């Protein structure tokens, strides 16, 4: 994104990233969890990755965190390709990139006290630091996420609420001077009255220059926090662009269907013909949305040819053949 002529630094860049799993009895079949995804995230930017379950959104998050390998393509962070980082270099990478996941309860070992997650960070990354310095650092990062250290330290995970545990994990990430956070559905397990606090926390961290990949299935949460949004369907980006443009003027039939079926508090559901999710059919070389699409006159070009992402308006890209010609 160009801002008044000043080009912001691209912090994270994904280029044609794919993840292919071998499935079937002898691994003879291939499952394309993510195919040819390219996007980039700038300094201090929040990008929402939106999709239904099985759309590959968590897979992308895990690939960025190097929890799973990349089948093809490249992910680079501040200009360095991360796909083959090893040993010390990988550890340095984790100093700046961390993740927080959906279920705060299973992120902890119930046998140990919850602040063990901080101790592990100290042993791994800050062995030279003194105890008092370290305690200071922990307290500061706990306060940064809106927790009172006295209330939450020295407790077992079951003694803390979901919101507290989730903020604990964000505090853990903040102990390292991270520049990038992968937030994978971190709100969905929290109660309505506490989820907005965690969301506001992310917004505060962003204003301090942290970039966030916000993975969600909830469209209103994505709108609340992010500048840009990516719509994912069966491993492919079908639409991406500035959040307002994507929400106010959804172009792809899938985005439109999703927008129409999201339960909202300000609008009742319209009578739209709803195509139920198709069974996992073979992915053909054509458009990924082909079987469910109500828009396409099911022309041969949709079936045989996967539409590329094209710029429909400035900073608004869509992968649909409806917009390919003349648009």
């Amino acid at each position, binding site marked *: 994104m160009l801002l008044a002529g000043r080009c912001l630094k691209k912090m994270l860049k994904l280029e044609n990233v794919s993840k292919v799993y071998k499935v079937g009895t002898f691994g003879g079949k291939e499952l394309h969890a993510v195919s040819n995804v390219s996007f980039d995230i700038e300094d201090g930017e929040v990008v929402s990755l939106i999709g*239904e*379950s099985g759309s590959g959104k968590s897979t992308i998050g895990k690939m960025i965190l190097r929890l799973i390998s990349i089948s093809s393509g490249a992910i680079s962070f501040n200009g360095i390709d991360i796909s083959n980082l090893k040993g010390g270099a990988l550890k340095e990478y984790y100093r700046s990139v961390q993740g927080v996941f959906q279920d705060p309860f299973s992120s902890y070992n119930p046998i140990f006290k919850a602040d063990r997650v901080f101790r592990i960070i100290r042993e791994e990354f800050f062995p030279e630091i003194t105890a008092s310095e370290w305690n200071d650092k922990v307290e500061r990062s706990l306060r940064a996420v809106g927790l009172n250290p006295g209330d939450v330290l020295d407790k077992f995970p079951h003694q803390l*609420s979901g*919101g507290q545990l989730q903020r604990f994990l964000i505090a853990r990430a903040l102990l390292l001077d991270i520049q990038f956070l992968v937030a994978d559905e971190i709100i969905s397990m929290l*109660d*309505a*009255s*506490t*989820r*907005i*606090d965690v*969301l*506001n926390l992310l*917004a505060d961290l962003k204003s301090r220059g942290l970039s966030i990949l916000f993975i969600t*299935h909830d*469209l*209103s*949460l994505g*709108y*609340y*926090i992010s500048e840009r949004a990516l719509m994912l369907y069966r491993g492919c980006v079908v639409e991406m662009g500035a*959040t307002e443009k994507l*929400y106010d003027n959804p172009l792809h039939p899938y985005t439109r*269907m*999703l*927008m129409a*079926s*999201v*339960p*909202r*508090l*300000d609008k*009742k*559901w319209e009578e739209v013909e*709803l*195509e*139920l*999710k198709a*069974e996992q059919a073979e992915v053909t070389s054509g458009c990924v949305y082909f079987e469910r699409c109500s828009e396409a006159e099911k022309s041969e070009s949709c079936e045989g040819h996967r539409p590329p992402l094209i710029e429909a308006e400035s900073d608004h890209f869509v992968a649909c053949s409806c917009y390919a010609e003349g648009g």
Partner: protein
Amino acid sequence: MSLQVENLTVYYQTLRGDVRALESATFTVADGEIMGLAGESGCGKTTLGHSLIRLTPPMRFVEGSVTLDNEELPVWDMGRMNDFRFKKISIIPQYAMNAMNPTRKIGKMTSELLESRKVSFKTTLPELKRRLDLVKLSHDVLNMYPIELSGGMKQRMVMVLSALLDPSLLIADEITSALDVSSQKAVAEMLVEFRDREFVKSVIVITHDISILYQIADSIMIMYAGQLAEKAFTEVIIHAPRHPYTKLLISSLPKVGVKYSEKRLTGIPGNPPLLLDPPIGCRFRDRCPLAFDKCVEVPPFIEIEKDHFVACWKVFEENAQA
């Protein structure tokens, strides 16, 4: 009145004492009404739903009465409730995805289920098939094992099963939470369809997702920490709530079109109280911005306007002045 609940109090027995999960619930659900029951986790909404149909230990019935179609339900008696379960009152359980027997084909399981209630599978089969069509499931599912169905399909299958004997009251416990938005919408609309076609007379939809209720429910009841807070028509709860908890809860929900940079939403400070030893009086007192001296007494659940029930001393005061 289809369902009348009076003063229903249910505790959980634990080694450390009773957990007061449901305290003096009094409400009615009319014929043809879809009532949404919402609240945070641990507020007692599932306890309320389950105590109407299957009150098992560690749940302990303390007091109260439940009347369905002018007939009192013996909710405290597991054995006698068998006459009502499935026929008069039925539930679509939470995690309905795992509710079916994985070792039986679905058709076989259904026939065993019906036979256990002394209903012939053969005579029910045509109706079963009609309803499968209605929820857009092919008849072949009867010859399949549950594992062969996707999450949304299982959910729809269990819905059909639960409502098969045309119960008077259907309880739907968090049936949409595990689904994608598109299947969520389909399942929610089918629930309305079931009511419209009079398969079921009234429905209680238990969920934490108020936006779903706004789409399908006629009325919404909000619970907080085991107590009823407010019940009114859906439009009233969403647009003109009276209880401070409802107000804060509704205003903390992000809507499409709201950005933090333009309008920063706030949560409700504090956490819900532990129900093992709950605070006396109104349980929302500690987090409530309007709390005053009177709140150490338990506010009654009173109808302040037609069909609008609230349990809050401040609201009563305002109402008396107006």
